[in-house]
């Protein structure tokens, strides 16, 4: 696990939000941000973490950091 602590410009807590709504919310938030800005996304384990990072990558954004916390994941996503 990397020690770098990347500062996020915005944060989205998607715990309890189902697929694919969690991805849609992430996408809409990223669309409102500028290229290069960082969005923090908090995702549940299971389906959300299986699907959302894949979809974020397919949209061309960069996942800078992933931190596993108790039952959920904290992602830092950089807008392309």
């Amino acid at each position, binding site marked *: *696990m990397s020690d770098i602590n990347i500062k996020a410009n915005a944060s989205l807590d998607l715990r309890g939000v189902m697929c694919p709504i969690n991805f849609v919310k992430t996408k809409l938030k990223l669309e409102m941000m500028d290229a290069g800005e960082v969005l923090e996304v908090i995702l549940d*384990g*299971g389906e959300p*973490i299986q699907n959302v*990072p*894949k979809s974020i*990558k397919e949209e061309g954004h*960069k996942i800078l950091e*992933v931190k*596993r916390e108790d039952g959920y994941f904290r992602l830092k996503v950089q807008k392309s």
Partner: protein
Amino acid sequence: MSDHFIEDKTTRVTVNLEGKAEKVDFNDLKSGGFIKQRQKDLFTVRLRCPGGRLTTDKLIKIAEIANKYSKKGVVHFSFRQSLEILYVDYKEFNAIVAELEKIGQKVASCGPRVRVPTACGGCEYNPNGLTDTQGMARMVDEKFFGTPTPHKFKTSFSGCPIDCARTKEMDLGFQGVVEPVWDEPDCTGCTICSEACKEDAIQSDPDSGKPIFDPMKCIYCGDCIRACPTEAWKAKRYGHIVRIGGKHGRHPMEAIEVSKFLPDEKVPEAIHKTIEWYNANGKRGERIGNAIKRVGLKKYLEFMDSVFESGSPVDYAAPKQGVKG
């Protein structure tokens, strides 16, 4: 033998087409994709739509033709992805075929021959897709469609292990796979891959978070590759799992896996040689799965060795399911 092929015994009739007498042989009709209906004089005209894909332009024209010739104004999506125009009077066969030909739409076939291939969307637009299933379906349609065989011969292409095209139920099926390879320097130990793997083939090291991979559990879907944020999981090679001898119908049989990671360029040869073996070994009316059961899987695999060796053949001494060798 479990699956008898019964010939259509309807006889030859003379019909009057535009003032001149023409013979229509009902026995030939099935080979041309005309299927007799319950209703007197009415037939289903099955179109040839490899992979179930049509341009919207063509679909509009087909709809116009269907609207003109179907006595009930209905079409049906066949179980093998082709469009069928229902309730067509046989006296209008020539006319409908001519109109379909004008828009570049061919009629399918039934009976003992290579059928129209089916396929999922594939890698062109489906995020799970690993192989160009639509391109493969077009290739089979161009190269092998209608080739005579002892009994029907169905092929299909699935782009990933979800296997929507049901390759396990085909006479010869191809399912896309990708072999993942992990590059340690690029890995940050984020543990997403172990979460993304639905097969429990990746565990995360409790200290470093780095993956511990169990190849025996991997089904080669590529979820780890797509989920990895740092491209530490990469694709080593893409290919097809090849399955032979499956069928559905009254007595379903599950196909046997005979090759893993067969490359794209070997697919035409695999089909060509399999048809050759089937025509040399299969009895009339016998599906290839039953022919393999009777003759022995080993014989088939020996014949195919030059093709399948490029796809690192699985250990076929003890096939887990289906037909025994």
